[in-house]
């Protein structure tokens, strides 16, 4: 069985577990994002058909909630926490430094898809602000230097293409 088939089967299982119920749409989208990494148009159409919902409803829900990613994220993902505590503690400066270093803006990826820079509204690590998440690791009480160094490490030498 191909990877595609396996993924589709996992999604089908999740929908079946929820009896293809409309009220489970968020749970199903969460699961779909877990399986595929992001929700593209074909996937959302597929879910709409399976749940017998108008595509407009499924697209409406998927675009309403910021947790759902509609674009393929980069290989490495940097997420800056823009919660109040992090903001007060200067997360903006760190974000600007990353933007400058890799010539990308918040919410974008480098053209070669190596690096994405995302923002989130509070991950609840406020006592250790500012917090930056590099892939799955959270950097507490982050500084510009530490974060840039960490990004360099996860990229492993190859600098991503800038525009």
């Amino acid at each position, binding site marked *: 069985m191909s990877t595609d088939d396996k993924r589709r089967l996992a999604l089908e299982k999740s929908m079946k577990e929820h009896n293809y119920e409309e009220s489970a749409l*968020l749970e199903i989208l*969460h699961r779909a994002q877990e399986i595929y990494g992001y929700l593209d148009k074909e996937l959302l159409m597929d879910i709409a058909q399976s749940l017998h919902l108008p595509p407009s409803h499924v697209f409406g829900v998927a675009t309403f*909630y910021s*947790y759902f990613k509609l674009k393929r994220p980069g290989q490495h993902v940097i997420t800056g926490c823009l919660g*109040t505590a992090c903001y*007060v503690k200067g997360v903006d400066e760190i974000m600007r430094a990353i933007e400058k270093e890799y010539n990308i803006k918040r919410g974008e990826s480098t053209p070669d898809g190596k690096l994405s820079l995302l923002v989130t509204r*509070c991950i609840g690590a406020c*006592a250790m602000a500012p917090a930056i998440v590099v892939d799955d690791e959270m950097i507490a009480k982050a500084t510009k230097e530490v974060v840039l160094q960490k990004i360099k490490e996860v990229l492993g030498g190859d600098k991503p293409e800038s525009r």
Partner: protein
Amino acid sequence: MEATSLNLADIQKIAEQEVDFERAYKYRINVCCSSGCVPLGALKVLKAFEDAVKELGVEKECKVARTGCPGTCAVGPAVMIEPGDYLYQNVTPEKAREIVRDHVVLGLPVKEMLYKNEAFYKKQQRLVLRNAGKIDPQRIQDYIAMGGYSAIVKCLATMTPQGVIYEVSTSGLRGRGGAGFPTGQKWGLVARAHSKPKYIVANLDEGDPGVFANRTLAEADPHAILEGMLIAAYAIGAEKGYLYIRSEYPLAIQTLQKAIAQARSISLLGDNILETGFKFDVELRFGAGAFVAGEETAILASVEGRRAMPRPRPPYPANSGLWGKPTLIQNVETLANIPLIIQNGGVWFSKIGTPRCTGTKCFSLTGKTKNPGLIEVPMGITLREVVFDIGGGVPEGRKFKAVLVGGPSGGCLPDTLLELPVDYDSLTRVGAIMGSGGIVVLDDKSCMVDTAKFFTEFCVDESCGRCTPCRAGLIRIKEIFDGITQGDARVEDITTLEKAGVYIRDASLCGLGQTAPNPVLTTLRYFKDEYLEHIQDKKCRAGKCFKNKEEEV
């Protein structure tokens, strides 16, 4: 655990067994493994303690437990040794062995490593967080040993649903989600609604940036939330509850999933709870990053799998909530208070705090404070006590400037209001809100105009778009702020800001729009001179504004 059918008396037996079991240990080492301490290396510290206890041959007299958060996030990883509640700060795996050797083997606490800040706990009163940092949240027995689930046993064995509601009403408890509606009254409304089935929605969609009280509660003491839901279900006659939690809290989700499974396994949830015929079950629902989903009609839409958009009230959810059925929506902190009220009585609870605002409130204390962390204080404590006594004041020799109470839609309060008692009504009177309990301290390096702009941007992002004043008005406010912070504004803009703020507040449907202008209106009320400085002199005394343009190449 195998599913076993227990009855009411069995809970007491489990508690006694657990207490005996604990008594066999002379020491108990509680390692905080909550979302705060884990990134600082808490799991390695836990492992190091387990190894050290074995190596030094004291595993029979010393228990190492994985617990939730004692609240001192500033000095994590935190480790507490009982008896005596010795709190060790900034513990590393290397230090673990030394602590076990000196404290456990020799009986001499390692003084240099102890948390010395007595003031942090002195003015706190930990009721909701009674077990936080003391029990293993992944073991239901730990909760039962601390008297957990005895309140639902008491309800089922000796109280009528009306009696439970009476007790909650007597306590004076008000909703901790922010609006402060009397809990007993809400329960009465749902209980009297005729339609069936009835539902409970527990709200753990802590969307306010800068707040982590509910997350910490769920990570440290998940069963307190479940027991509160059980008691509420018994009182109003619900058979199904949904616990709505934001996806950004993976550890809290995991902890709750485990807690629900354990409660089911000993028939504390299910079709025949403790052989009494009482039926109730809880399902988790995951949010997906929408601040507005914390609003009570929006959360209903989200649980039903739709966009989290608020709708007009009435009809109130008490009569027409989930799928048009009577629904009780309650914040998880409110629910965690319930077991205590049943155990100790409503009268006992009503004596804590102030007469109109009883009990305690959890706050996430962050920003420019010496002791950031999670605190729980009696209602009516003054802001000064929170910021200076518990928080220890402003670090790095800076000067206190303002305190932001109530999250992105709260108010910025100046030093002249530091004597204000912290309760629902006093905060509303000065233009702030209790909100879900965020207190952010700002020092003189913060610009009040920039701060108000930051919150407006947040609310622009999070407005669901339903009401025009909120959707379009906030964008207009943001545009004016862009002008003010870039040197392109007139003094008349201040009047426009005030007007727009009042319109948005008065003409929006839900709590988000009604409170979104609060930061703007309070900064205008208390820090108007800074606005004038920006507009007339093009000067920002904190040095935050007027540099965006040059920097962007």
